[in-house]
């Protein structure tokens, strides 16, 4: 009767006009001279944020632009932060950029690189560095909100990594560099939410976040306005990842990047969902609530638990087809699974995580035979 702890360290401010409150929220977290860190390819989003800050006469300490694939961007961020005398971090960019900003924040807060810091022990920050993000669309799996991914690939969880606030504004998400990949982003969020829901032991608050994510994705699929659609998808992406923080270790999510070289995360998750579904367990109430969001016809919730499961699986796949019309029906191949297993063994995942992933891949291999 012990339920996993749940903690969602970020305040979410979402919707049209969210950016207008950015200045107010920055003041609330004592951010008086933020360093704005933006991905080089997110200029349109960056402009929208700067416009919002200027409209409220907020001081910007400086701007640090990071290129995709840049070597050690965290070092550049730390250097710029110190040389300009900034006091907080405001990040706009994809999963890699957010990870780099988390790394920089940890270094600024604790005085040493996160790889040299034991986050399982008590840590008194040397200085408090507020961290706020403005969301863009990020189809890549990336870290969970409470995680940092080290260069080695190891994932460290700690409440210290949560951004203080996450802004999701259609004026920014609608201009994301990855706007053409919004279907993939939505599908990745969909499967993350479904996997988070399948954990009976997760905290109810985590399942509530997963259910909220499903609602946002379903609504996004039926929304015509592109900016609003991207906003709903970004909401869902953040909520589904938050749901996973309160869930068990999900081997499907952890193993996905090792299959297909991590090139098509949403398609890989779809494949894993189809393979794993028979073994996933869901609370009946969660199935009903999900179906009420996913299927417009009320009669979908009329039936026994097996019927509800079938309806749920079909609804998730129908929604995926709308989000990823080109995805087709990919099946895992024996050689693909073997390569993935080898990659998992070589990875920086811990032993328990590796074992979980390998068990799941083994089950898939048996099913493929």
């Amino acid at each position, binding site marked *: *009767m*012990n*339920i996993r*702890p*749940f*903690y*969602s*360290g*970020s*305040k*979410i*401010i*979402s*919707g*049209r*006009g*969210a950016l207008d409150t950015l200045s107010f929220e920055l003041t*609330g977290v*004592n951010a008086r001279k933020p360093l704005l860190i933006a991905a080089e390819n997110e200029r349109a989003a960056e402009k929208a944020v700067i416009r919002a800050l200027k409209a409220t006469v907020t001081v910007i300490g400086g701007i640090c632009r990071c290129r995709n694939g840049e070597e050690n961007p965290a070092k550049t961020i730390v250097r710029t932060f110190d040389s300009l005398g900034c006091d907080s971090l405001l990040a706009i960019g994809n999963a890699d950029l957010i990870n780099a900003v988390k790394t920089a924040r940890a270094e600024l807060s604790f005085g040493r690189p996160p790889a040299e810091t034991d986050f399982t022990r*008590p*840590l*008194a920050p040397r200085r*408090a560095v507020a961290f706020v993000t403005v969301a863009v669309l990020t189809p890549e799996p990336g870290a969970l909100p409470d995680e940092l991914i080290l260069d080695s690939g190891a994932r460290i969880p700690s*409440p210290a990594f949560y951004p203080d606030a996450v802004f999701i504004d259609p004026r920014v998400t609608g201009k994301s560099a990855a706007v053409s990949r919004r279907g993939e982003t939505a599908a990745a969020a969909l499967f993350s939410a479904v996997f988070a829901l399948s954990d009976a032991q997760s*905290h*109810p*608050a985590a*399942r*509530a*976040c997963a*259910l*909220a994510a499903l*609602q*946002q994705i379903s*609504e996004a699929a039926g929304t015509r306005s592109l900016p*609003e659609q991207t906003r*709903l998808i970004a*909401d869902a992406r953040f*909520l589904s990842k938050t749901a996973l923080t309160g869930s068990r270790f999900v081997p499907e999510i952890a193993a996905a990047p090792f299959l297909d070289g991590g090139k098509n995360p949403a398609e890989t998750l779809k494949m894993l969902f189809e393979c794993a579904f028979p073994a996933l367990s869901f609370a009946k*109430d969660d199935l*009903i*609530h999900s179906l*009420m969001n996913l299927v417009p016809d*009320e*009669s979908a*919730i*009329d039936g026994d638990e097996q019927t509800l499961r079938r309806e749920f699986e079909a609804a998730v796949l129908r929604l995926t087809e709308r989000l990823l019309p080109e995805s087709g029906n990919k099946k895992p191949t024996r050689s693909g699974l073997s390569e993935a297993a080898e990659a998992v063994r070589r990875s920086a995942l811990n032993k328990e995580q590796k074992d979980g992933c390998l068990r799941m891949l083994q089950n898939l291999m048996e099913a493929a035979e």
Partner: protein
Amino acid sequence: MKTSPYFEFQSKVRIFAGSNSLEKIGEDMELRGVSRPMILSSRTVARSGLLGFIEKGYRPGMETGVTDTDIPADSDLETVRRLAALYTEKGCDCLIAVGGGSVIDTAKGVNIAVSLGCRGYDITPYAGAGMVKEKLKPLTVVPTTSGSGSEATIVAVIADTAQSKKLLFTSPYLLPDTAVLDPRVTLSLPPLLTAQTGMDALTHACEAFFCLARNPVSDAFALEAIRTIVRYLPTAVAEPSDEEARLQMAIASNLAGTAFSNSMVGMVHTLGHTVGAIAHVPHGACMAVLLPYAMEYNARKAGERIGALLTVLENEKAFLSTPKEKRPQAAANAVRRLNEKLKTLTQGAHAVCFKEYRNKNGEMPVTRDLLPRIANEAVNDGSIFYNPEELSRSDALRVLEAAYEGVSLN
């Protein structure tokens, strides 16, 4: 049901839920780098030995700085001053509150005084909205009733007895750092109080779901809370020693508290606050009586939302077999049936209408002639701002009269 075009949501409290969660406090303190807590509680809790479980979980080098159980039913400035001085004198570095709303609010007040260096521990300069602007000392909260959800709110109410007024403090920094939901803490809660506080939690969740400031995340928290309350409240009342039911109720209350602190409440609280203030009826008892009437009253503006509650107040079969236009009434009736069940389980002590309510002395504090005064004062309560339907004095009186007699508005 469309999502709100704009919303804010936060739930920054770390939650430990489970049968041995009190022992987890030491681990949490270690992570926060503190070792000498001031424990605030009630005499009843201290007598029960529950505080010992907290100390059992301490890591080497940790010890309780001081324990104080002399906290009045309504927290006040004088108590905050006294405890803040004690905190400093004993060299404490964090706070643990084990109790109901008063203990928790007192702890929040002490935290303001000791963290912000208030002169003479006077916290009045920080009264109001958003006046506390800095992180405070680590605060862990162990709620001993499953209803108020105050472990999940950014509010503290502290009385200024010299001025005969209540000071309201609101700030995100008043959110506790950690909430510990341990069923052992509520095992001794009597059935009637369990029923009333449970209905308080149900009201938080229902109003969070159908009032105006709702959002998709608070919706999901609210639905999960309602589902759990409907399933476990009767068991917690009928079998107070059932640990599973107690734990689920504590979780549900926390979820409901998180939902309403993000999306606010409506007319049940508008009327309930005033009934409580004028007739001295416990908050939970007011909520239990008024909730079905608010659902009926709001059906015109929020019928679809209230109707959707039928899936969790009853089940999907009841939802599907009820025509859309009749669902709001069916949902209100489901709450009435829950109230009736609680009345039976408490041998008639749980009131389903105001004329049935009796206080400890067997008196009937809500009388018919008080209703116009309650209606007059209620419409000035701030919570009405988020109610879907407007509420005039005459409307408030109509609802109160129906709730007094126990007859449906329709």
